[in-house]
């Protein structure tokens, strides 16, 4: 199989997955009890004409099939419809909140990669020693902290007590935003650090016991060179796989952290929109997350053979 055909095949699968996901995302709303118009009116007493008029404005009088067609054709042109709660285009509603979530996920991702890799690598290289044990115990403790608890503790210490960081909001401008998002990104990163560190450690431990590593070591190749050239590089495969899942996971997990820090990102918007039966927004966000997930996995698939040629040759790296 040539690389081009491989990529083309991946792309086809990706589009099919996205199409199926769009069906699922759209039609699942008909399984949810409750009439969006009833919710939109929030206990008000409009005339019957007004109800009919508003229903028509949002296209809710069409059959489900027609509604899907209208929606998906819009989506293909970048139009996700109109938000019921904000009476505004969904793209505008999401566009306003996307930068916060992207920045949050990027900062959390950076923390996760740096801290997770470092802890995992240090543990693996000191396997069985005190440092390894300390890191493992520390990870177990960290892993047991849900992100909302982490958020509460961080706010209590660093914003309310010490006043070093703001307790809510996402700030204006790049540096202000970084300051505002420091605590939230740490809260978001905690659970994922544990995951990355554990995967890193076990992958590296696995690689260290491989024959070629022992051979290299016995030949007198320097320890750092062995770690870099053999252990770390070969361990990257599984770490990367986890990384792909991680990004989509971060977007979803961000809802809790965003709520706790009063950030207006995609996550908190999703939670609100589900609660308010604002289907156009829910559908757009879910499709977005599914899209990110599928694309990240495809990227990992494409990158893997480049990092580890053995997987492309079909010999199986793991």
């Amino acid at each position: 199989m040539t690389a081009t055909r491989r990529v083309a095949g991946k792309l086809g699968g990706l589009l099919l997955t996205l199409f199926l996901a769009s069906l699922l995302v759209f039609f699942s709303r008909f399984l949810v009890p409750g009439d969006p118009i009833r919710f939109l009116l929030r206990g008000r007493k409009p005339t019957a004409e007004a109800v009919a008029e508003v229903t028509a404005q949002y296209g809710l009088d069409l059959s489900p099939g027609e509604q899907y067609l209208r929606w998906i054709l819009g989506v293909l042109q970048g139009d996700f419809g109109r938000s019921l709660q904000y009476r505004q285009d969904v793209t505008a509603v999401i566009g306003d909140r996307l930068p916060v979530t992207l920045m949050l996920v990027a900062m959390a991702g950076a923390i996760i990669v740096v801290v997770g890799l470092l802890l995992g690598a240090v543990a693996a290289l000191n396997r069985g020693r005190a440092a390894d044990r300390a890191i493992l115990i520390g990870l177990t403790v960290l892993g047991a902290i849900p992100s909302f608890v982490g958020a509460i503790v961080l706010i209590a210490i660093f914003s309310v007590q010490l006043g070093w960081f703001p307790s809510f909001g996402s700030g204006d401008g790049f540096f202000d935003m970084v300051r505002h998002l420091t605590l939230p990104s740490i809260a978001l990163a905690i659970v994922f650090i544990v995951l990355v560190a554990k995967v890193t450690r076990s992958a590296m431990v696995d690689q260290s016991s491989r024959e070629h590593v022992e051979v290299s070591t016995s030949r007198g190749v320097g320890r750092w060179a062995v770690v870099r050239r053999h252990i770390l590089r070969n361990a990257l495969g599984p770490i990367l796989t986890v990384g792909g899942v991680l990004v989509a996971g971060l977007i979803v997990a961000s809802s809790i952290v965003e709520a706790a820090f009063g950030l207006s990102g995609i996550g908190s918007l999703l939670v609100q929109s589900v609660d308010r039966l604002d289907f156009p927004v829910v559908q757009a966000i879910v499709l977005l997350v599914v899209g990110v997930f599928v694309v990240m996995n495809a990227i990992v698939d494409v990158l893997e053979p480049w990092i580890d040629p053995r997987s492309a040759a079909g010999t199986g790296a793991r």
Partner: protein
Amino acid sequence: MNRTFLRGSVAATAGILSIAALVACSSAASNGAGSDESVEWEITATTAAPSGDIDSFTFASYAEPYSLDYAYAFDYPDNSVLANVCESLLRLNPDYSLSPGLAESFAHPDPMTWVYTIREGVTFHDGSPLTAADAVASMNRHLDPEVGSFWYSVYQNVASIVQTGDREVTVTMTGPDAQFNLGMGGSAGVIESAATLAEKGADYGNSTGGVNCTGPFALDRWESGESITLTRNDDYWDEDLKARSGEVEFVFINDATARVNALKSGSVDGSWMLPMEAVPTLQAAGKGDVLFGLNTAVGSVVVSDLEGPLGDVRVRKALLLAMDRDGILQAALRGIGERTDVMTTESVWQEASDSARTAAFDDVADYEQNLEEAKKLIAEAGAEGAELTYVTAPISNDFSVISQATAAAAKSIGLNVTVETVTPSAYSTLFSDPSAREGVDLFYTSWYLSSPDALEMYSVLRTGDFSNYGNWSDPEFDALVNEAATIDDPVARGALTAKAQQIANEQLPWLPLFEAPISLYLGERITGVQPSVAFLYYPWAATIGAR
């Protein structure tokens, strides 16, 4: 007519609330304040006058406004912002009295006609002058089905709204309706520039379209999901209400704990409607003041099925008699409020006579807890072992306390109550969708009035009304309320309303629990506000300046 059902509600979700509950517990514990300890409170009518003007201040809102379009501004987050930007024909003051607003006067030549004289010398924020045509265009939107106005009920008896003079607007009714004019102090009476309405179309009032009104502040920017910033209107017509602050920023903090943290850390200067469980920690932080003001809301348990066991008035009375409402108030709201047996507060009896007030508040049955009496009534009704369903949602602390307390009270007199918990949005459909109320006997509401007239409360309990959730029907009550609705004289109307209140107190279509004041936090930088639920319609932010 106007109501709120979810106090501080819609923003809250199950996930977020669990965080709030957790923090509330831990912070209460660390302060050594037990959760049952009550808070000292008193009503504050006004705070000290500002020592001077201030550049800007920040207020926290528990949710982002859905819209600043006055036709859809129907909830705390929308109205508390809009009240400072847009103005109505009449002005609802902090003491809940009405005075002239954008209409410098009004006339009522016959029971079917209201004539408003539009004030001269008022300009919109874009500089264009206010005209009678603007008033006609703004008011007619409530009648347009395409708009689907939330304030339609105020206009339900309107036949036409036309310009009848240079500065004159005439509203013709299909029948006598004394309530229409009283509604003109709220969002139903807001006047917007006709040109702006035409220009913005469907985007009018949302975060991109914005609004162009006449208030002491103008909408400067709306950062969707984050904040709304208002700037002072230097050309404001009313010298007495010129804004003391150059800017005011509303930040949306959905999470109750995050909001309280922002107040404690001083990064936000104030907030209306505090989570009551946080009041002790805010007071302990000592950086600002927790204040309580005039309210019109009464917390009641709605009886939503009169076909079932609660159809017998003896069972309804027994259930109310079985409740420890002082204890409920203590646990739900830290004791901030008062037990009540009627569905209105004295604040909405503005122009009623003393005798009407006596009839409405003193000559009524007192349902102080009495288990013996309650059990006797249940036995008489033969209702032992009856099954009831109570629906609640994780909205705030008081919702869960009241659901559990109601179930416990019912159990103590031999009724079985099943408490069902639904999502906040499913809960809100109880108020709009009759099918959602099927099989539901009871649910809680905190109901406030938007006009200074108690009749607003009782008009929703007439036979067949949209918000008469249990389909309660009493011909004598209907006749009283229908007659009162046509009476312009507030004293005569008040006398009839008092009789309606007595019937409701006797018949208990809803079970009144308590009335609680509106809460407000003012940080150490600002002062000058009059704490009152009128903050939904009165330009309260204009009076705030430097402490």
